[in-house]
């Protein structure tokens, strides 16, 4: 997971954000917040000729309107890329539109309720402590590489019933699909094939040896006609759970620790008042939402007065919506006990993240265990924080000092 810029095809630098935005520009990756403010001040929806033509709503209101309008905006493409291949890799239900969406989503919802997550919580707490054990004596660590990166991958592997030790493999596939894949189609296809082969093997094995895990649950599920799901559907859903469940939460935990490392008042308050954790988690989700989705315009319509045409993509930035001051007073401030917080970090409308309860539990546990054992920490001035590019934003290098070193 080296420097992204070294192998991705270069896009020309942006000189005019309002008419020529590029969410893969290094300045956007590093610090998108002032760019979003500039775009929002200019218009509720902006357009770029890059990525074969792409709109971006800049206000919470416009993002909500698009998320709720499945008639004009399709989820058949959910990543804005340089290419627009006709062959689509389906990952139901995230890539589904009504009426196929609802039955596909209902299959996945029961294993991810808050009660189901409570059963998984002790394992996640143990994972966090196993990780902390490995570096706490050093007085410093790269918290992204040694801590935040491993928690979601191990938790989802545990749920799916696949080896937690295959985690590095999953992380590489996801990097190839979500980051490199924006500009490099071949790398994306290779990773998707490798992932499919991996899951095909696990599905085959369970046909003779069923197990008490999520893969088996999906294989035993029945559609509305009482028929088992096709292997392709099971593989697609597994692809989704793995892709959506890993670097998203890794990013959210990482951004939270990054914020706390550089904001002593919030760090001390959260360590002192653990009851604040639920509202703090929601506020950190709002302020540093990791996930940007996309839609494809399939029917002519207008957004906040701007006509949009079929064939164009729409960058659906929930992170930018969550910084809209019309919706959130002091939107650029982290207020750990914010009282009103209808944030859209997990999306809005029918595509609400199926793993939101899992993500919240992982974030809560990861921050609680870290704060219990490492209450005092700061960014290591000798190191460099780096951020992922594109669809999911979070720290990929997060050098920290703690204990006596802090």
């Amino acid at each position, binding site marked *: 997971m080296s420097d992204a810029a070294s192998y991705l095809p270069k896009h020309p630098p942006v000189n005019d954000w309002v008419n020529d935005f590029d969410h893969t520009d290094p300045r956007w990756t590093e610090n998108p917040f002032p760019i979003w403010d500039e775009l929002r001040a200019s218009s509720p929806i902006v357009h770029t000729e890059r990525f074969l033509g792409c709109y971006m709503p800049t206000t919470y209101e416009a993002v909500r309107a698009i998320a709720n309008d499945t008639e004009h905006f399709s989820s058949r493409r959910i990543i804005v890329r340089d290419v627009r291949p006709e062959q689509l890799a389906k990952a139901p239900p995230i890539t589904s539109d009504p009426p196929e969406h609802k039955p596909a989503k*209902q299959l996945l*919802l*029961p294993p*991810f*309720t*808050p*009660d189901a997550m409570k059963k998984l919580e002790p394992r996640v707490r143990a994972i966090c402590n196993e990780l902390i054990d490995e570096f706490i004596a050093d007085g410093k660590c790269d918290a992204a590489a040694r801590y935040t990166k491993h928690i979601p991958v191990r938790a989802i592997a545990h749920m799916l019933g696949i080896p937690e030790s295959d985690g590095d493999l999953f992380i590489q596939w996801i990097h190839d699909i979500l980051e490199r894949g924006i500009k490099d189609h071949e790398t994306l296809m290779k990773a998707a094939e490798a992932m499919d082969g991996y899951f095909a093997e696990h599905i085959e094995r369970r046909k003779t040896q069923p197990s008490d895990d999520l893969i088996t649950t999906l294989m035993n599920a029945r559609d509305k006609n009482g028929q088992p799901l096709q292997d392709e559907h099971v593989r697609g859903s597994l692809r989704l759970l793995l892709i959506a469940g890993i670097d998203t939460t890794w990013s959210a935990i990482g951004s939270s620790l990054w914020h706390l490392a550089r904001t002593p008042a919030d760090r001390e308050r959260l360590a002192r008042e653990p009851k604040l954790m*639920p509202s703090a988690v*929601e506020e950190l989700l709002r302020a540093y939402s990791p996930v940007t989705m996309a839609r494809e315009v399939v029917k002519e319509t207008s957004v906040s007065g701007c006509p949009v045409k079929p064939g164009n993509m729409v960058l659906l930035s929930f992170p930018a919506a969550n910084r809209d001051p019309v919706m959130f007073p002091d939107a650029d401030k982290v207020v750990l006990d914010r*009282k*009103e*917080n*209808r*944030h*859209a970090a*997990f999306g*809005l*409308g*029918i595509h*609400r993240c199926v793993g*939101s*309860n899992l993500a919240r539990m992982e974030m809560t546990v990861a921050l609680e265990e870290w704060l219990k054992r490492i209450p005092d920490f700061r960014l290591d001035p000798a190191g460099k924080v780096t951020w992922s590019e594109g669809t999911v934003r979070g720290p990929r290098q997060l050098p920290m000092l703690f204990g006596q070193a802090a």
Partner: protein
Amino acid sequence: MAAKLKIRVDQDKCQGHARCKSLAPELFELDEYGNAHEVGDGTVPAGLEDKAWLAQTNCPEIAIEVTEE
């Protein structure tokens, strides 16, 4: 005496964010899909009014109605 409150979750709008259940567990229950429903007939017991409003103002889908009786 303060007015009695009643809550109702609009099932067409609820998407199962479960914020209400987390903020006011006494007033909401979740079904097998994680979608929220008001407990009983939605009458808010005395003392839980603040929690009802908190749930209402944090629902991302604006799916919760609070009415004063």
